[in-house]
């Protein structure tokens, strides 16, 4: 099965690979895994406390090309968005952008889970209650 050009591009030149300081209150960390294939993905965000805008996003993924591309794309998309805006990103958007085949859809789900987990961690650190909307839209 051939990967789409966009997947190959993200795989060869992943954006925003790296680590943010986990202990910082401005940083939210999401660590998620896909039991289907054993992939693990860590996505971190640094949120501006004044504006709630995600100013920095970093990821580190151990997995297949689609998982790396999905998380790379996810960091690109959430950068510059507010936390609430970032919650609106759906795995189906990632599937469409990267033309993922059905067997690789779980990679995009993993990326969506990672965004939510990172935001959830940041909210927990900063005492922000999960909004009802976010709760119901999560799966």
């Amino acid at each position, binding site marked *: 099965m051939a990967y789409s050009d966009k997947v190959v591009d993200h795989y060869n030149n992943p954006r925003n690979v790296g680590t943010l300081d986990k202990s910082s209150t401005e940083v939210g960390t999401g660590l998620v895994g896909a039991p289907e294939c054993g992939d693990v993905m860590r996505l971190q965000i640094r949120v501006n406390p004044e504006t709630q805008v995600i100013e920095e996003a970093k990821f580190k993924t151990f997995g297949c090309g689609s998982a790396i591309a999905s998380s790379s794309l996810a960091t690109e998309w959430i950068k510059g968005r507010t936390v609430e805006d970032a919650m609106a990103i759906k795995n189906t958007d990632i599937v469409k952008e990267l033309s993922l085949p059905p067997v690789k859809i779980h990679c995009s*789900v993993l990326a969506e889970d990672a965004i939510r987990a990172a935001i959830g961690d940041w909210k927990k650190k900063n005492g922000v209650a999960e909004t009802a909307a976010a709760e119901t839209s999560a799966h």
Partner: protein
Amino acid sequence: MLKVIDSAVPVACWSCSVAHNDATLFCPHCSKIQPPPGSDFFSVFGLTPRLNLDLPELEHEFHRLSRRLHPDRFARAGENEKQWSLADTALLNDAYRTLKEPIHRTEYLLKLHGAEIGEEHSGKDRKDPSRVPADLLEEVFELNMQLEEMRLERTTGEADPVLQASLEQAKRKFDGLLDEVDHDLRAQWQAWDEGDIAVRQSAQKTMVALLDRRRYLSNLVRDVTETLGV
């Protein structure tokens, strides 16, 4: 959740017209070869789905059926029978390969009973999204980071002996965890084979979780082994 498998759909033999169980490769009445049955792999061997199998017996039956199905025996047979000998052989091979290997057998049986296993199941389709073994994730991630560092050091030719030792230790640990999972799986086999519906359902759930855990562990052991070259 527990799907009932009805492998005993009666089908009339194409040759003698006597009805037989759909799963059989040869008509029990006239011994003529039958088209590939649409039933599960277990019934190809005349077994009801179960996890503890007598492997020497399975192998014996595999060889016996393989000989009976061999295309050479159908050289003078009709076109249909020739085709069926090939198709039945392919089915028999798939069935044997799947059933003789313990993890494949377990996954296959769980899938037969409706478990969502394998890459075709995206997280969204999963009925139970909380399947990820959270306690393992952190460790898996850290070890992957170490592995990457090790590979990087290798390319510049100066592998750190401390890192090497720590990876070797990690490998022993994960080998041990893998053994534990396999041991736990076998205990569930027994429960599934001998239990009533409630016991089976609980065993199925436990096995799906164990297999998830196992996938992480076996990937890790594979990667560590590759990197260490041991």
